[in-house]
């Protein structure tokens, strides 16, 4: 008993000291570089996990799946709520062209490079190479507006480039999540019951979409009119209802071995475009985004089990691939597609931050494809997210300072949906 007590106490001490050190280091980075991530939470998860203290053993990490699925779905749903059609309809066509060309060019270039790496360099057959390459290309495409928001907050005013960057970050996320969702449909893993014919790839894609649409419609009906949200504790009750809806949609996706992030994106899209409760839903999702993201980081840290080759070879290679793809995508959109007043060859530099959805995709991959280099995908993603989140704010600030028009308030009401107050 004494030995167990000592081990447990030592584990707790390691966690406490490790967390405080991580906090101090990253707080300094926050001050110096405007760091926007939550890497200390990956550290605390790693310290709690089986690799270091074992306080959160492999079994307990599995037991946390409901929280993790909630976190994955939460981020997916929040992403879906950004695409409110009345707002989208007011966006300038040139902005949309920039955003989509940036996202597709980044995804395409990352995919081609990663396919070559996995097939020719690492020797995987085409199907396996494709699964891994598409996942990492989706992760590479994802960008977050957190760094841009931080820069804007610091400057106190919007630049003309801000709405373009914000829109591009959202389209990046849309492309990444859709590609990953489609991947899990096309390369679907798992057996169906003997009495039914196994669905084709197209049918799986339709089923995935249908689950999201059905969840969205049913939850829209479940929420009903906005009135009941106004009563005392209305927000807490909305939280319960939202959590229930997300867990149901995520559970259905897990059940079918599909992506809960994609399903919840569709759910969020439907909620944002139907009913009167969309503002309450979006406000609540935004308010709780950070804790949810941090919970996901802790889980990712606990589930993280990196090996030396992954850390020394694949992760740095992925960082380089992402950086190159980002710059290329940014150049295509900012130089070739953008109108003269928005010419920004270094657009990609402002979109280096990856944020929560990237971690969510990697965690989702480890759950649905544990058979195919799950550790490698998670390691590459976490290393990339941690590194890029450190430098993202500074780079975004530089781009906005050089190409934007800081000091001028954007008078374009069509681009940025004002966040609910």
């Amino acid at each position, binding site marked *: *008993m004494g030995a*167990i*007590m000592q*081990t*447990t106490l030592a584990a*707790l001490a390691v*966690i*406490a000291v490790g967390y405080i050190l991580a906090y101090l280091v990253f707080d300094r980075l926050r001050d110096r570089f405007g760091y926007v991530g*939550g890497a200390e*939470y990956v550290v*605390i998860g790693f310290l*709690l996990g089986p690799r270091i203290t074992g*306080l*959160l053993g492999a079994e*307990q990490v*599995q*037991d946390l*799946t*409901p*929280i993790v*699925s909630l976190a994955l779905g939460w981020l997916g749903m929040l992403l879906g709520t950004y695409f409110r059609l009345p707002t989208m309809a007011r966006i300038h066509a040139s902005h949309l062209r920039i955003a989509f060309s940036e996202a597709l060019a980044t995804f395409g270039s990352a995919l081609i490079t990663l396919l070559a790496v996995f097939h020719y360099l690492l020797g995987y057959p085409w199907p396996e190479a494709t699964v891994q390459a598409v996942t990492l290309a989706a992760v590479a495409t994802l960008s977050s507006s957190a760094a841009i928001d931080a820069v804007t907050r610091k400057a106190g005013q919007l630049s003309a480039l801000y709405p373009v960057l914000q829109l591009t970050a959202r389209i990046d996320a849309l492309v990444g999540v859709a590609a990953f969702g489609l991947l899990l449909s096309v390369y679907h893993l*798992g*057996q*169906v*019951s003997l*009495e*039914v014919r196994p669905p084709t790839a197209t049918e799986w894609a339709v089923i995935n979409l249908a*689950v999201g649409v*059905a969840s969205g419609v*049913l*939850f829209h*009906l*479940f929420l*009903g009119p906005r009135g*009941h949200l106004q009563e*005392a504790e209305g927000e*807490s*009750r909305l*939280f*319960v*209802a939202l*959590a*229930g*809806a997300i*867990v*149901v949609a*995520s*559970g*259905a996706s*897990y*059940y*079918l*071995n599909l992506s809960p992030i994609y399903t919840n994106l569709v759910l969020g899209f439907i909620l944002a475009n139907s009913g009167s409760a969309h503002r309450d839903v979006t406000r609540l999702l935004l308010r709780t985004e950070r*804790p949810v993201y*941090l*919970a996901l980081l*802790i889980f990712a840290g606990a589930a993280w089990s990196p090996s030396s080759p992954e850390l020394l070879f694949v992760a740095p290679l992925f960082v380089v691939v992402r950086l190159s793809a980002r710059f290329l995508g940014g150049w295509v959109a900012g130089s070739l597609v953008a109108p003269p007043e928005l010419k920004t060859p270094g657009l990609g530099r402002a979109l280096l931050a990856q944020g929560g959805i990237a971690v969510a995709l990697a965690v989702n991959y480890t*759950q*649905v494809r*544990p058979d195919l280099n799950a550790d490698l995908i998670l390691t590459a993603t976490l290393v990339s997210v941690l590194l890029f989140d450190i430098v993202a704010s500074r780079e975004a600030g530089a781009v906005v300072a050089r190409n934007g028009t800081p000091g001028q308030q954007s008078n374009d009401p069509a681009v940025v949906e004002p966040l609910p107050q």
Partner: protein
Amino acid sequence: VIRRLVVLMLLVGGAVLLEPLRAPTEGVIAPRSLFLFGILLLTADTFGAIAHDLGLPRLVGYLVAGLALGPSVAGIVPAGVLEDLGMMKRLAVGLIGLLAGAELRMSDLRQRHRLILLVLAFQTVAVLVVLLVTSLLLREWLPFLQPLSDNRLFFVALLFAAVLTVNSPMVTLALLTETRASGPLAKTTLGVVLVADVIIILLFTGAFSLAQASLGGTTAGAPEILLRLLAEVLGSILAGTVIGGVLTLYLRFVKRELVVFAVVVVFATAAAAPALHFEFLLSLLVAGFLVENVAPVRAEPLVEVLHQAAVPVFVIFFAMAGADLHIQEFAAVGPLVVVIALARMAAVWGSTTYAAHLASAELGVVRYGWTGLVSQAGVALGLATIVADRLPGVGLAMQTLTIGVIAFNESIGPILFRRGLEKAGEITVQ
């Protein structure tokens, strides 16, 4: 509400449609558990709204939802799913413990210590004596007492009474959070149930040791068990002090992402408790109390965050508690359950009213103080399980009846307490 019920039925129907497309996934929690957990949450929320519309506490709705979907009734949420989700329940219990401790103000305790101690003492003794006498009178009909005589009969009946002496901090806190009551009745009830939590564990330990010794168990082990449990209580207080210290440091130097940190603290405590042999809930209760009352930091941000998290946490806890109730098991002993529960209720009423009168408490406390002490839930169920596990002979037979009485009190108690708070004029939010 009807619309919501229809949606829930459609969701369950959708699940049936997806059944043939099932793809077994290895290495993660059963996907079906996840889906059913979501259904449980949505159903509990809906039933909570129905209960609210009927003028009942929401938690009664959560319990009924759990019961309706659980293995006892519809079987939509089977027992395996509840096992899969054990960690969620633990998280809920831990957060409630932290909040309960933080809600206990030293100033209130100081001001009301005489009343709290008197109610606690009278209630404990009265319930113990009344249930002991009742069970001895009913021994012909109580299967676990029928074959016993003399000492064994007395000590096993005493153990049965001790298990049913326990109150429910969970129900008290859930109702106070829901109603936002904060008058003399609310403060007194909270003080009594939280202090009783510690006292009852000691009382139970003594009764358990005596019953075990009388049944021919290890007589020499009785004081050993008592010492071990005393050490567990002291260890919990010590652990709570350490956790409180960590929370204080965090509030002093970091003070960010409090909800995430609270969840991490609860998980770390849950992981450390079995290894270090301390009681999970008690340690978090102590931690919350120390942060609120002793620590040189402002605890309001933490308390506020815990309050915000309280509603979802209560939904999870009570819905799962409802699903855990196996009503068919005690359907056969229904009349006995009612008789014993009513005897307990009478003892609580008489003793609390007398003690409050003796302490010259406010009229609301004298008249309605007893209503807050009827409820029973998690702690009582835990003790019943310990008896069943460690004394399988009489314990299993006793468990059926005990759980029946707890279920009765769990359903009636919140309704009584809410009515008591209303009558005492302490409910400000409808």
